[in-house]
């Protein structure tokens, strides 16, 4: 395990739309180990959904492939890493602009949501080399929460 990682899960699946909801559920359930509010869990759900949807829709636009979701738990910090070995992004700065999309049917809001809903967003990508999205989030309230 990387330094300071207390627990983690690693999920891999083919780029089938059915798996977007499965990935969301996994990340939300794992995230419950930290004192996130329900609202924060909903934000994590959206950010995960956007990252995994992008891997499937954009990364594997030409041919299917594998998506990897790794979730690391640190002291009071959640790290989500979504990776594909798809087409990659030419210009990350351009792709990150609100409303920018290479798909005319889409809104260009995925990266905006990831950035807004998580504390930190990092994208590592190059044409033909696939894409790696890393997102971090800490619970905002430090008060104890009663877990089920």
């Amino acid at each position, binding site marked *: 395990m990387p330094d300071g990682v207390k627990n983690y899960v690693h999920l891999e699946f083919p780029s089938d*739309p059915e798996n977007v*909801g499965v990935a969301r559920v996994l990340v939300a359930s794992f995230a419950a180990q930290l004192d996130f509010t329900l609202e924060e869990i909903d934000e994590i*759900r959206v950010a995960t959904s956007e990252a995994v949807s992008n891997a499937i829709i954009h990364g594997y636009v030409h041919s299917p492939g594998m998506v990897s979701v790794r979730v690391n738990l640190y002291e009071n910090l959640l790290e989500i890493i979504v990776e594909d070995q798809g087409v990659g992004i030419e210009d990350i700065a351009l792709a990150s602009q609100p409303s920018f999309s290479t798909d005319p*049917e889409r*809104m260009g809001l995925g990266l905006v949501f990831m950035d807004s809903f998580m504390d930190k967003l990092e994208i590592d990508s190059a044409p033909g080399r696939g894409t790696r999205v890393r997102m971090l989030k800490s619970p905002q309230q430090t008060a104890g929460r009663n877990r089920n």
Partner: protein
Amino acid sequence: MKVETQKVGKALVVRCGGELDMRTAPQFRQEIEEKLNNFETILSLILNFADVTFVDSSGLGVILGRYKKMAQRGGQVMLVSVPPQVRKVFELSGIFKIIAHYDSEQEALRLA
């Protein structure tokens, strides 16, 4: 996801439930398109989201697509009962600036 439609005069009420994402968006689009194509007279598309538990940008995209279709025929889209846990993506997207939202179907129907 659940998509129930009901024609009320010149309005089409669509009661949605479940998760609206890239998996379910095509079904959502198709069921609404079918009804809109069958009834050219419909001028208000009322989307009741009371039972919707999740929406992401793929979900918003298909709502915006319906908005464009309705605008083409001089009609409108109205959102009803958007639950708190999905409200944030609507707010962030700015979609509330072009699509009005209401607390109840009755209210939307009155203004349809």
